[in-house]
Every structure is written in structure tokens, then in C-alpha cells.
């Protein structure tokens, strides 16, 4: 068990800066997900922690120890690789026992720990097979078993589920989450799959272009994205973004979109008057009304995608395309007119220039503590 701290980590490859001045603290027993598109530096950051890459600047502390210049074997970490990296020339038992043998554990201890890890991952009947004789999903289990068998202080996972098919991935996601909770090991988990990040992590560090742009709980990342990048990357469908500005002619501030205006009774919002803004709103925070009314925005239905649990509409209002999620019984005709109500409490404001979120004192929903 150990906490992990990164101080101003930099890593460059030639002229490309892969990790740019990253600070991150992971508490003992915490499960942090590094989430970002490919090439954002998340895997490089993980490899810096593992000691597989030498950092060009900054320090790595594991359990309070400065590990910046330690080789991987002295960092008390274990890693699960995207390709699983199961040794093809060793039987499963010897694969799982590899780290324990390197630590010169006595035979009885090795036997016991391999059995323990194999049982946790339900591969105890396969231990005398070679990796070529088992399925991809089972190989993935071997990789996890091998990593947890050594009882390392920190568990590193580099896209461990991305090579599994969709159904198996969903199954393994829940299983892995339960398993890691049971073990209580500090875990840093890299993925580009935002569903995985939302569903598994205690906290999510969203990365873009070598930097951590937001570090929050999954719900905070979903509901309060730090900028338009995070809002557009996290969630299916991504957050809707509309060009907007605010005028105050009467007592109530008026939100002007390209497709219409609606009043928003919030003095905080009134203070944004005159700025060029981006309004961000999730698909499920938009209510579809069948007729025109006070505070509604007119829109044209473009596409209706029935998804079983709900329907996903693509609608057009003014110059903007929006994704709107509706209950499954609502089937508006394509090209028909509908009216949208944007839930006031779930509207987020970003600066149009920088894309950064503009924090407002929000009496309805205080930010979830991260």
C-alpha cells in the first residue's frame, strides 16, 4: 500500500512533448483513471511511474520514497499491459509465479499466492496450460493475476480491457472493479474509453495534449466539465455546445442562441451579460415539448435513433445541431418541429475564446467534492 505523487513531470520524445509539467497525487488505496484520447500522454505518464521511461524533469514519489531514478523492479509496482504481455514460453502457473520467484519467496508461499490470485480470477483450472492454449479473455485474466500475486504497493493498468470484445469488456469491467475494491491496492488505470473511466474510477484525471485538464470524481467530470474538450470527450453522446450571449433588458437575464432566446432567472448568469459564451448542456438535460410555450426553443428534428432504453434525437436549432435524449415512447417525425426546454440547473457556461468553464455560485447543485 502506498500513495503516489507526481511533481512537475515532463517527458519529451525528440521535439514532441508527451507529458507536459504534470502534477498528480493519488492517495493510498485510491483508484485513479487517466483518461484521454490517443496521443494525449496518458500511457507515457503511466510508464514514467513504472520506470519504463526516464522522465526529463520532475519527480516521482511512491509511498513517500523518491523513485524518480529507481529501475522498475525497485519501485514495488505491478503492471498490466494492453497486450497482456503474458510470457508465451511459461505455463500459467509459472507466469503468475514469475514475480514471486524473482523475489525469492519460498515455494509454499508461491504456491499459496498463485492459487489465491488464480482463484480470484477464476483461472485455477488452467494453471498447467501454456498461454497459446487459452483464449484472449483468459490471457487477460492471467495478466491481472500475475500483477496482483506479487502484492505490489501500486497497481498500474494500461488499457487492460481494450483488446476484449464488447460483451466481455463489460463483464470484466464490473469484475475488475469489485476485485480492486476487495484488494484495496492503490491503482492507476489508463484508458481512452470514457465509459470505463466513468464506471470504474474513484477519480478521473482527464488528459489532453500532455496535461491533466481536470481531476475530479466521475460525476463531477460528467456534470461539470472543466472545458469544452472534457465535455466533448466524456459522455455518450458528448455534451452539446451552443454559441450564446446574455442580454439584460428586463429584470430576468435573457439567453440568446442562434435558434431563439429564453429567460434564465439567475442573477449569477446576469453577470455574464455582454460576453461571448458557449452554453454546454447534456442530451438528457433537454426536455422535448410538443407545442410552443414560454421559455422554449424551436427546433427541427433531423434524425431519430431508437436505442431501446431511450431515443436519441439529432435536432437543429438556428445554426446549431443538438443531441437530445428522449423517453423511448416519444417518436417525433423527421423534419417535424419540436420545442426544447433546457433545464436551468444543468446548463454550463464556458468562455467562447478559451473554452474554459466559467464557475458560477450554483445554489441548486454544489460541485461534487473531488
Amino acid at each position, binding site marked *: 500500500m502506498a500513495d503516489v505523487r507526481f511533481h512537475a513531470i515532463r517527458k519529451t520524445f525528440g521535439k514532441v512533448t508527451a507529458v507536459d509539467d504534470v502534477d498528480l497525487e493519488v492517495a493510498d488505496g485510491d483508484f485513479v483513471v487517466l483518461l484521454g484520447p490517443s496521443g494525449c500522454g496518458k500511457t507515457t505518464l503511466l510508464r514514467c511511474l513504472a520506470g519504463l521511461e526516464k522522465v526529463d524533469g520532475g519527480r516521482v514519489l511512491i509511498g513517500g520514497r523518491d523513485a524518480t531514478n529507481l529501475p522498475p*523492479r525497485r519501485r514495488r509496482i505491478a*503492471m498490466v*499491459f494492453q497486450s497482456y504481455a503474458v510470457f508465451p*514460453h511459461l505455463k500459467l502457473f509459472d507466469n503468475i509465479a514469475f514475480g514471486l520467484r524473482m523475489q525469492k519467496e519460498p515455494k509454499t508461499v508461491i504456491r499459496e499466492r498463485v492459487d489465491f490470485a488464480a482463484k480470484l480470477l477464476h483461472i485455477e483450472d488452467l494453471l498447467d496450460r501454456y498461454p497459446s492454449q487459452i483464449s484472449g479473455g483468459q490471457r487477460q485474466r492471467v495478466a491481472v493475476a500475475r500483477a496482483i500475486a506479487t502484492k505490489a504497493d501500486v497497481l498500474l493498468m494500461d488499457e487492460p480491457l481494450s483488446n476484449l470484445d464488447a460483451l466481455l469488456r463489460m463483464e470484466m469491467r464490473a469484475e475488475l472493479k469489485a476485485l480492486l475494491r476487495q484488494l484495496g491496492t492503490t491503482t492507476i488505470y489508463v484508458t481512452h474509453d470514457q465509459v470505463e473511466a466513468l464506471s470504474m474510477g474513484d477519480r478521473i484525471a482527464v488528459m489532453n495534449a500532455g496535461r491533466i485538464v481536470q481531476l475530479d470524481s466521475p460525476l463531477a467530470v460528467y456534470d461539470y466539465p472543466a472545458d469544452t474538450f472534457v465535455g466533448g470527450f466524456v459522455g455518450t453522446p458528448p455534451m452539446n455546445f451552443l454559441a450564446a450571449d446574455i442580454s439584460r433588458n428586463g429584470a430576468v437575464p435573457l439567453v440568446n442562441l442562434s435558434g431563439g432566446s429564453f429567460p434564465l432567472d439567475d442573477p449569477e448568469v446576469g453577470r455574464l451579460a455582454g460576453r461571448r459564451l458557449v452554453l454546454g448542456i447534456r442530451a438528457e438535460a433537454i426536455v422535448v415539448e410538443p407545442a410552443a410555450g414560454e421559455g422554449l426553443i424551436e427546433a427541427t428534428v433531423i434524425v431519430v435513433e431508437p436505442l431501446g432504453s431511450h431515443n436519441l434525437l439529432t435536432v437543429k436549432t438556428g445554426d446549431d445541431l443538438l443531441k437530445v435524449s428522449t423517453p423511448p415512447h416519444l417518436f417525433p417525425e423527421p423534419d417535424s418541429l419540436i420545442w426544447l426546454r433546457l433545464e436551468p440547473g444543468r446548463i454550463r457556461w464556458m468562455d467562447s475564446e478559451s473554452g474554459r468553464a466559467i464557475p458560477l455560485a450554483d445554489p441548486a447543485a454544489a460541485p461534487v467534492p473531488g
Partner: protein
Amino acid sequence: MNPPRSAVAGLGRVFVYGSAALLSLFILIPIYLMTLAAFSSNEDTYAYPKELLPRGLSTETMRFFINFGGVLDALQRSVIVAVITLVLALVIGTPAGYALARFAFRGGDTLRLSVVGTRAFPIVILSIPLAVIFIRWGVDDTVLGVSIAHTALALPFVVLTTASVFAGVSPELEEAAMTLGCSRATAFVKVALPLALPGLAASAIFVFIVSWNEVFAASLLTLRHRTLPAEVLALLEGAPPNFRFAGGFFLMAPSVIVILLIRRYLFSMWGRVLK
């Protein structure tokens, strides 16, 4: 079961086995004829039409050949030279191949090219300087001298084949070993090396055969301590054909044995099938 499909599969199998049989015959018939001649008496060798089945096998020719002059000594020297060459070439060439496969370093491509480039110079034009250098070093006419020359001949091949062998071993496997307690060196020994073994075995076979068959450098660098091919070449120039066949058989047999011994490393590994 679908009869037409199985018929097609059956035809395919006939074709595969037929081709394999033809190929095998192409290689085995000359070997068979040579072996036959090596173990026939002089008259039978000259007999016409040729008998394809052995008749009155005799080890007379073979025995005469083996007991002649320094043949056995030359055989011993050849084995020693081939083994030294094999060890030297693999010990020097494998790390070079590994480095080429794993690390991007300045001049890597140049090195790769120059490795091949060494084979661009025919050994004939190098023969005089080579002989002079070896005499100066005092390794002319010795087993060690021939081994060094053979190592130089075999090295480019070893470097390039081992480079491609190691390129086929995922670096993530070694990294996994390093996170599990290995240093770079132990990760190489425990993971990369065993996985590269089939490729290294193929490389070893090739080195052995290069050295075993090499006659030019061996003839050039030795006088009284010749290796087998050099000795056979010198001895049999004016000898009757059956002695030549005996010499040929004698040259061939050991390399066949070596291939048979190393062969199992090439194919049957880690439950991955294949006989």
C-alpha cells in the same frame, strides 16, 4: 458434413503431400546415389546400367578413405573449427542483433548496411592481406585462425537473422519482466532469450554449415592442419570417382546429424504444436 467441400480439401491435401514428396525426392535422390556409390566397390560404381538398389554393399572404399592420410585428423579439426565458429559468431552476433532490434541509436541504419556490406567484398581479394595478417598474429595454419575467418564470414548473417528474431519478440514482454523484478539483463535471459531460441537455433545451424563447407579460407590459411573440406579437396583431386563419393558422403553426414539435433528446437516449443 459437406461432401464437395471435403473433396476439395482432400484434393488440396493430395497436392500438398505430392509437392512435398517431389521436393523431398529432388533432395534425397542425389544423396542416396552418393551414399550408394560411397559404399559400393569400385566395379559397381563403374557398372552400367546403374543398379538403383544396393548390391554387394562394401565399406571398403569408405574404410580406405577414412584411414587415408590425415582424414580423421581433418575431421576432428573441422568439428572443432565449426564449434568455435558457432560459439564466437553467436556470442558476438546475438547482442549486436538484439541491439539493432531493440534500440534506435545514431548510426543504427549505417551499421545494418555495413554489416551486409562486408559480404560485398569477395574473400578472394582479401586473401593476401588476410594471410599476411594471420601470419603476423601467428594464427596461420591453426584451428583458431580458421575459426576467426569463418566467424567473420558468418557474422553478418547472424547479426541480421538474430535482429529479426528479436524484433519478433514483443518488447512489452521484457518490460513486464522488468516490472516483476528483473533487471534489463535478467529480463533478456529469462524472457527474450528463450523466446528467440528457435531463431537462434536456425542461425546456429547456418553458422555450423557455413564453417563446415567453407573451403577457400580454410585452404588459404592452412597448410599442414587442414579442415576436412580443404583436406578432401587436396586429396581427391586425382582420385577415382568412388573415393570422391566417399569424400562427399563424409562431408555431408555430420551436417545432417547437426540439423537433426537442432531441429527440435526449431519446431516443437511450448505446446505450440508442430512436429
